[in-house]
């Protein structure tokens, strides 16, 4: 049986873990204190590089490398922006960290700030997460009172402030450049790259944007060592990860698991998720949030790691595994997905602004009437032309799932709906 490996969630069930005293009693901030007093900023980065940590927001970029892009010997202030705009459908893990062990995220944030020389960090929490905002703000206040945040932290030369910055309801602000634009007080438009945020981010100063879970991992890595982290999971998918199991499962929830090539995605769904609630056969799985291709029931026997799921044609993305059984019509599922992304398109780029709604309308027609001859080819071509033609990845977040549904469930889109 697959077992959870609880590192990040080790103390999450203790309601007192949100308090600084409990967090410290459980070893919290020891790693940060040690880093401040015994390690150079570069040592911290090296430890993270050694761990093999990849960003947990969905794109999976190596965290240590991202930090190394921050220019050194530059007079500009540097910033950390923690991406807590958790909005990818199916994803509900960062909230667990913030509501159950917020200091773990703050400690990682401080470590990242120390590593790159940042003096201010903002936690951009989606505005709907009022509970998270309250808990994280309380945690910051406690840590500030204990001189863990603020000026000359623990008597050292290192100073760093951390502030919560609430969003206001826009999925696109989870895209790192849109997050920065939004944080500056604007409509959350993604920015053209280059320049990349590590070089020109907030107020055109170097800025590292990392996901909440990534920050929690940084804490674990500095607490237990990069080697320890690299020894968990498997190559390319080291450490533990929080997976959000949702949809038609018996035991939906947030689970901390190691990736492995020794068991399969199906095993996780069966053993951790408990299979379908109704007992009906699985029809499909979105293994990494709804912005990646769907996997059919017969495609679930791939290894449970980034590489294997990629080879199977999808992605572990943000760790959101959404399962649907055969009681639901896939036309409804893909329409629902397209409604999400067309609603969330910021409207900047022509192909996304116009195309996402066109796609939604075609899928609505498919759902109610079924496609006419040539419609499927048109939809494939239209989505092709949204792929890679926009500033950010929101357009492909509609293209990939939609194309995958059309390809993988051809029978569902084969004919007109008869009354």
């Amino acid at each position, binding site marked *: 049986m697959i077992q959870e490996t609880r590192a990040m969630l080790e103390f999450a069930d203790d309601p007192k873990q949100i308090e600084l005293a409990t967090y410290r009693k459980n070893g919290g901030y020891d790693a940060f204190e040690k880093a401040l007093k015994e390690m150079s900023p570069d040592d911290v980065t090296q430890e993270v590089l050694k761990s093999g940590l990849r960003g947990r927001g969905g794109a999976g970029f190596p965290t240590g490398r991202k930090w190394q892009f921050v220019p050194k010997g530059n007079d500009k202030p540097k910033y950390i922006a923690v991406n807590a705009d958790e909005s990818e459908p199916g994803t509900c893990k960062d909230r667990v960290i913030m509501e159950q062990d917020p200091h773990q995220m703050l400690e990682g944030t401080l470590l990242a700030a120390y590593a790159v020389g940042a003096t201010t960090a903002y936690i951009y929490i989606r505005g709907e997460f009022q509970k998270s905002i309250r808990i994280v703000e309380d945690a910051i206040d406690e840590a500030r009172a204990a001189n863990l945040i603020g000026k000359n932290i623990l008597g050292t030369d290192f100073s760093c402030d951390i502030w919560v910055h609430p969003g206001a309801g826009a999925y696109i602000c989870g895209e790192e450049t849109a997050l920065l634009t939004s944080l500056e007080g604007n409509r959350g438009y993604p920015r*053209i790259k280059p320049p990349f945020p590590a070089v020109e981010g907030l107020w055109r100063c170097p800025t590292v944007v990392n996901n909440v879970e990534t920050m929690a991992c940084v804490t674990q890595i500095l607490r237990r060592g990069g080697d320890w982290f690299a020894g968990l999971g498997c190559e390319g998918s080291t450490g533990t990860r929080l997976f959000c199991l949702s949809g038609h499962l018996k035991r939906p929830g947030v689970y901390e698991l190691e990736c492995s090539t020794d068991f399969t995605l199906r095993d996780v769904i069966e053993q951790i998720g408990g299979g379908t609630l109704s007992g009906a056969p699985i029809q499909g799985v979105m293994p990494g949030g709804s912005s990646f291709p769907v996997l059919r029931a017969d495609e679930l026997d791939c290894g449970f790691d980034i590489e294997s799921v990629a080879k199977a044609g999808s992605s572990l993305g943000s760790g959101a595994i959404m399962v649907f059984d055969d009681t639901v019509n896939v036309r409804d599922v893909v329409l629902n997905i397209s409604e999400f992304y*067309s609603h*969330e398109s910021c*409207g900047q780029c022509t192909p996304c*602004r*116009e195309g996402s709604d066109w796609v939604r*309308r075609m899928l609505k027609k498919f759902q109610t009437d079924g496609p006419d001859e040539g419609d499927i080819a048109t939809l494939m071509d239209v989505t092709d032309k949204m792929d890679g033609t*926009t*500033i950010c990845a929101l357009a492909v977040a509609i293209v990939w799932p939609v194309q995958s549904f059309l390809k993988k469930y051809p029978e569902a889109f084969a004919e007109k709906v008869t009354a």
Partner: protein
Amino acid sequence: MSDNGHVTLTIDGKEATVPAGINVIEAAKQVGIEVPHYCYHPRLSVVGNCRVCLCEIEGVGQLQIGCNTLVRDGMVVNTTNERVSRMREGVMEFLLINHPLDCTICDQAGECKLQDYAVDHGSGITRFEFDKGKKPKNISWGDRVVFDAERCILCTRCVRFLDEIAGTDEISIDHRGEKSQLVVRGDGKLTSPYQMNIIDLCPVGALTSRDFRFKSRVWFMKFTPTIDTSDARGCNVVAGTRDNRMLRMVPRYNPNVNDYWMSDHGRLHYAFVNDEDRIVMPTAGGKPAPYPVALSRAQAVLEGARDEGILCVASSYMTNEELFALKGVCDALGVEDRYFLLPMGEGDDLLIHPEKAPNARGCRLAGFRDAPDDWSSQEFGALLYVKPRELIELPAEVIERCKKKVVFSLTKHASDVNIPLTTWVEKDGTMVSAGDRVQCVRQGMVYEPTLLTERVVLDRLHTLLDPAFKGASTAVLAFQRMADEHPALDGLTWLSVGLLGAKLNKAEALA
């Protein structure tokens, strides 16, 4: 890196050596390749939202937007290959699915980049079978700009112009995604004195000019490069005329004067050209008189007044050639009191100049003095007066102190001899703008075929006064004669002044 801060790259197989730091669109332009673009404008920040300038950069996986891709040495760019063409065709289709395609009633037709690129890069068919999105049409953004939200492609050029150039931050986008729509702050009326530039900037028919709307299809019009004569800035413009009436002015790029812009005041400063009340025939003694009759009368009036003195008042709206012709008349008559009238007003730091006439510097160059604030009570035998078109007039009591009057004017003016004026779009000539810059005006229309320009009229009068004098046959020759005589113009030619003007060749205290 090639030498002197230049890089060499290949664009569609053509080698191009261009300055480092420019983008692919500009580099392509330098070798005669047009990369289509809507949101990009050389003077506005790069936002990269329209996506129509997608290009393939060899070695880079995804297509890149030409506006945000800076040239590198050795870069190989494809702007038209199959992959690029397919994606660009896609962008055009996306732009058009919710566009009303109301070209038949759209004022932009004929100069619309959506039309142009749809022809050049579109597929010619639509696969969109749903109802087009409905948005508000014919929204008044004040008395100058009309907005049509359905035609808008959200390129945000107008937003950026008012933010970054005019500095009034008046337009924003409301909502998001496909519901996005431009809104104007406050009561929804624009306030910038430069707001009409957004009409030129708008690549489609979303922003149209209240003044020009529905007056003419542009393909029936004649376009003449000239300058704005509403103030001393001398913004370079294109005058649009049809059937010998002036219909609009739009700015013409000149990096030394006005860049791509002009003030609304200058743009709208042309109504007098088409005024129905303009006189088209001289009068003598209040009665219509052909030019030879009127000029003989003028000769008699002026020669008869020599002993009592003649007051000559020029207009700062005249061309240099006209001013030198007037100078010749004054010289022949021995006139000592030579002045010009210059209307003054408010200026700003961008383009609006406080001198509300184009050619005070030319007046000074031709030896006319700034009119005094307080005229003396001296009496004159005659007044030779070229009346400015508006804003300023010679005080009535000064006119009254002159016994006889020869007046050039656009509309009827009580006088012994009244000669019609022509406006700057009816003749060739030069003026000296702010910064001592010589610029050409060019004839784009004739108001009435029988009208003679002031230069011709004044030269003929000069010949009557001095039979040995022979005027130049054209404005170009008149300019050359003037340039030969006057040190400040020495070495300049009509061609060297050209479309973009030229500095006076040595500093003259003309300002």
